[in-house]
Structure formats: C-alpha cells, structure tokens
C-alpha cells in the first residue's frame, strides 16, 4: 500500500481506538507493519533522533530528557508511555506525523527496547544512542545478556554518531570499541556514594574483561556490578569522563555537576544514574542549564514506579521491580527508611514477566530494617514466601495469598507504613486493586 494511505488508514484506526476508550498501544504499529514492512523508512525526519536503551531505567531517563528539552522550549516527540518495541515506536510516529509522513519537531526521543535497537535504527537515522546498563532481565524471553550486547555491538560497528555510555557498567562501556573510528563517544559516571561497597553485594554481570578475559578489579561497587572497575592487563575501564556526577547525597536528594548542585525528588543511586544519563544528553545538545536545574527539581514519574499514596491512613509507597537489580534497589529504599513498615511483594509469572521466577533468589533479603511483616502475592506468591523464609526472616511474619485483593485486605489490617513491590504484569493489577480498596475504605 502507498505510504500516504497506510498513514491515513492507521491514523483512522488510532482515532477509533481513542473513541472506544482504548489506548491502542502497539496495535496501530502492528497494522502498519502488515500493510508496509518498510514503514519506518517512510517517515520524513529532519530533527535529531535520540534513543535511550538499557535494561533498567529506560522510561525514567527517556521521560526526563523529554521534560528537560520541553522546558527549554523545544518541540519533542516521544513514546512516553513506554511502547518501546518496533511496533510501539511506529505507532507513536504515525500518531504524531503529518499525512505525508513528516515529523515536525526539534527532537525525536525514543525509549527503545534493547533487542530492537539494531532493527529500528537500521531504517531510522539515529543521531544519539544512550546506553544505560545491562542486567539480567527475563532471560528466557530475549536470550542471554551477552548475546544482546553483541547484537548492539554489531550495529555500532558502522555507527559514527553520538554514543553516550555509562562508564561504570563494564557491559556498556565496552561498546565504545565497536567502531574505533567513532570520535563521538561520551561517557558519564557517578562518583562513589555513601552506600557503595568494596565487595559485590548483589547479583551482577560482567566479571571478566570483554577484551582479554582477565577478571576485572573493582575499586568499589555502587549497586550490582555498576562501579569503578579496571582491567589490570589491558587497562579497560580507564575512560575519560564527559559528564561526572559528584557529591551524591541521597538524604537531600542532590548531586553536583561541574560545581552546580542539582536537587531532585528521587533518593536512590539507581535514579541518580538515570539523571547522569539524561544530563549528559542535555549537556551534549546545549540545553539551558538554569532551565534544566528547575526541571530536575520538579521531575516525577506517575506510572507505578516509586509512587506514593495514602491508603486507609497509611503511607504507601509503590515500586516496580522486574529483575533482581530493581528489587534490590527497592529493598535498599526500604532499609534506608528507619520507620516500622510492612511489605507487600507481588510476583507474577505471565509471559511478559518471563516465566522463570528463579531471579528472586538473587534478591538480597538478608538485611531487612524494621520490617514487621511481609505479605507475598501473585501467581508465584508461594515461591516468594519460600525465598524470604530461607533468608531467615521469621516465617511467622510471612503470609502468602495468591489473590492480590485478599493480600491487600490483609496488608491494611495493621496501621504502619507500607511498601508495595510488584513485578511487571503485577504492577497495573495491584495498582487497580489498591485503588479499589482505597475507595472502599472511603479515602479521598
């Protein structure tokens, strides 16, 4: 079908989905591919295309970049809802383009699933790729981490535009060598923070130098395998840093770049790294610094990641954790909070979650600061209960209910602060049921 008609037709479909109250998601993109497999080549894009990829933190980093650029009076088109695969990206472009396929914006910023980077940007001309980190994530779906990195490495061999890399993740910074001719490589890094450790505390990837197979030496670990590393044999790791975050202070939610202090609403090392990535992009594209400072101060997410609510008069903090690293970050937040609290942890094993739940054994439950009770739920509630019990947390303080609503009712039997941790498909379900319970309690 001719491009014009494909775009017109899909725009029509999207419109109808909207009328019927459906968000659409990937559906318009799927249709577009059916009608024209080369649809990505059909868009006319004059502005820089910036892609954000990596295992954890894509949505937050992507949305943060978009907010900074928008607050600096730039027109930005982006897939803010996290539809980050090929079809989701096409859906976004179709929705936002003119009938002739022209994208009218100053920047196109696209959160992109790791395995789709080579596919999407074969046809869409990329100006800047941001790579955050590589962690174990749903291994049984996308193959092992290494093969994913190799695919992106292969793509980068012929890429010579801006490449922004996390210098502190050995799985990421190795990508700089994919094309030795590329002079546009920009590393970001976060200086040692208060809770960094000398030993690896949580499951991590990349213990060996990717170039000479020597065991990597770490000066310190920030979280998981992210930290200051070096290969004694070939000096891999000694990068020149373009954007360095210093004096990270999680209690006051602040850090420094080039002598300026920035404050945010986030207090985890993991979000600090996302800010490091986002600010690198803005530094590279010369965003106004005063405007950026202001944006960072107000930036929040509202899609279940670190969301705060009051339910039945109890402070409730909701956090998504779809892999060990995410869960360990959530538990760090629990432990850095000295108040007494109870945890609800919901674990599903639907296809989108990855059917393998063994990753919960890579979560560190050994230290739980003032946690009075843990309730587990979801299709794999019992697996989680066994895991927590085996860490020597008292078994009489663990309750398991496969039904999420039932678990929520039990959670609010007692008045304490609540932390709710959910994996991928459990997030929306748990959120809905929390809202339903909140209404029933008569909270406003």
């Amino acid at each position, binding site marked *: 079908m001719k491009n014009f008609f494909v775009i017109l037709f899909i725009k029509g479909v999207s419109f109808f989905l909207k009328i019927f109250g459906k968000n659409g998601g990937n559906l318009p993109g799927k249709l577009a591919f059916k009608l024209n497999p080369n649809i990505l080549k059909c868009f006319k894009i004059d502005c820089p295309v910036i892609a954000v990829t990596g295992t954890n933190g894509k949505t937050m980093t992507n949305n943060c970049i978009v907010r900074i650029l928008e607050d600096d009076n730039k027109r930005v088109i982006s897939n803010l809802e996290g539809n980050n695969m090929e079809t989701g990206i096409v859906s976004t472009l179709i929705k936002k383009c003119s009938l002739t396929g022209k994208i009218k914006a100053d920047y196109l910023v696209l959160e992109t699933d790791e395995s789709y980077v080579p596919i999407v940007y074969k046809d869409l001309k990329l100006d800047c790729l941001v790579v955050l980190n590589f962690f174990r994530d749903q*291994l049984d779906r996308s193959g092992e*981490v*290494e093969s994913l990195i190799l695919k992106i490495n292969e793509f980068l061999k012929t890429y010579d535009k801006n490449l922004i890399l996390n210098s502190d993740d050995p799985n990421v910074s190795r990508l700089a060598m994919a094309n030795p001719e590329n002079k546009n490589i920009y590393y970001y890094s976060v200086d040692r923070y208060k809770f960094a450790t000398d030993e690896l505390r949580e499951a991590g990837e990349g213990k060996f130098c990717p170039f000479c197979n020597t*065991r990597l030496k770490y000066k310190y670990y920030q979280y998981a395998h992210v930290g200051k590393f070096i290969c004694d044999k070939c000096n891999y790791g000694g990068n020149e840093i373009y954007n360095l975050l210093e004096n990270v202070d999680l209690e006051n939610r602040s850090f420094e770049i080039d002598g300026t202090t920035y404050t945010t609403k986030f207090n985890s090392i993991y979000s600090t790294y996302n800010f490091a990535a986002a600010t690198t992009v803005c530094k590279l594209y010369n965003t106004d610094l005063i405007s950026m400072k202001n944006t960072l101060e107000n930036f929040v997410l509202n899609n279940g990641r670190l969301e705060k609510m009051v339910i039945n008069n109890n402070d409730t903090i909701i956090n998504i954790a779809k892999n060990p690293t995410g869960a360990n970050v959530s538990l760090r937040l629990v432990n850095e909070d000295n108040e007494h609290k109870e945890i609800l942890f919901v674990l599903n094993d639907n296809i989108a979650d990855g059917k393998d739940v*063994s990753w919960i*054994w*890579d979560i560190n439950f050994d230290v739980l600061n003032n946690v009075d009770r843990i309730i587990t739920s979801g299709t794999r509630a019992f697996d989680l209960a066994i*895991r927590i019990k*085996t860490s020597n947390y008292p078994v009489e303080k663990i309750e398991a209910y496969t039904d999420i609503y039932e678990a929520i009712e039990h959670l609010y039997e007692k008045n304490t602060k609540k932390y709710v941790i959910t994996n991928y498909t459990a997030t929306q379900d748990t959120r809905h049921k929390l809202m339903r319970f909140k209404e029933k309690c008569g909270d406003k």
Partner: protein
Amino acid sequence: MKELRILYLYPDILDLYGDIGNIKVITYRLEKRGFKAVVDTYSINDDKPDFESYDLIFAGGGADNEQQILSQDLIKYKEDIKKAVDKGVFFLLICGAYQLFGKYYKGVDGEIIPGLEIFDYYTEANPDRSKRCIGNIIIETNLDGEKVKVIGFENHCGQTYDIKSTFGQVLFGNGNKFNDSSEGYMTDNVIATYLHGPLLSKNPELTDFIIKKCLKRKYNEDVELEKLDDNFENLCRNQLFERFLENK
C-alpha cells in the same frame, strides 16, 4: 555438632537463574536442625581445593561465554574430581555444570568445549539458536525406593545424549532433549540435572535425601532428620502440580 562441608564451584561465574538458592536451602535445612553448614567456594585464581575433603560439591549454570573460560580452568582438576566422585563425595550439578562433567559440549558452530569426561554422556547445542528447552518442568524420581515428584524450571539449548541412568521421568516439560521422556543423570552419589528453580527450593524431600546421604557417609550412621515446617513448600507444590499436571 554434626556438620557438612560443602564446596561451591565458581559461584561468581556459574550464577545464572538463582542456582545459589540451592546452597541457601541446604544451609537453611541443616541449621534448622542444629547442624552446621560450612560452605567454601572455589573460583578462577583461587588455591586448589582438596575436593575429597568435602561432603558435597555443587556447581550451577552460567552464561555461554563465561562457561568456556571456566572449562579451561576446571579441566586442571580432572583427576582430583574423578577421585572425589569415586570416593563417594556427593555431587549436585545443574545445567552448565551437568554438561561440563560429560564428555564434551558441541556448540552451534561445531566448536567443541571439552568436558571433564567423568561421565559418558555428551551434549550438542540445538542447531537453531533461537530454539531452547524452556519452561516449567516436573519429573518423577526414585529416592531410595520412594517415588517423588521434582519440580523446577529448565532453560537450555544443549541436547544431552547417552545417559546411562536418568534422574527422573518427565511428567511435564522437555528433559534431556526436546520432548524427552527422561531428565538428568543420577548415580548413588551424583545428581546432574537441567532443573533450575532453584532445584532444591520447591523440593524439600530431595534436599533432605541429599543431606541424609551426606550425613550417613560422613558419620557412618542413619541420621534421623527432624521434620520442618514445609507449609509454603507444600502449598507451592500443590499449586504448581495442579496448574501443570491437571490442566495439561
């Protein structure tokens, strides 16, 4: 106080799919009964361990590229490990470790990673890289004459052939090869299997079987194991049996 000495091989390399959980479960079930668990680790660059001095030696699965690095290291100890097997030290080997103890592993491009050749079986990668045996798996094994269902999760592209004595019969899932009827390899003092999960987390009877075996060999007496609260384990097993066996 009775104790078991456990050697955990390459914990920092063979660490995929939460296999470390097996060590946690064994330790937990020993300590709950007042026994002691001494867990030593060995990895590349460490001093050579005295394999025969341990009661139980454990190794798990890892990423393909890292498995190659350690195959070169492990082969240095071929004779020592063989002696430990012959002496009756219990070996629990999961996935990648299972394969490494066989004759060889043949990769997709025909490259051969030599194994320890301690057991006769060999493994070949499935030619289609994207096709792996992945999913929940339930087998039935025989523990000292008692039929026990074992539940886990398999994720391997290797197809293992020439198994003399299997760990169990497949009730749900693949096993040693696609749609196989048998899973793993088992002798008197060896369990080698593709089951992650981690394996011991949902199979308390199997864990206690291994603990009992090791204690018996070490102290030369039948040690009665105190019953533990396995409420969550039983609920979990029942839920998953119902889901995978009854709605098949």
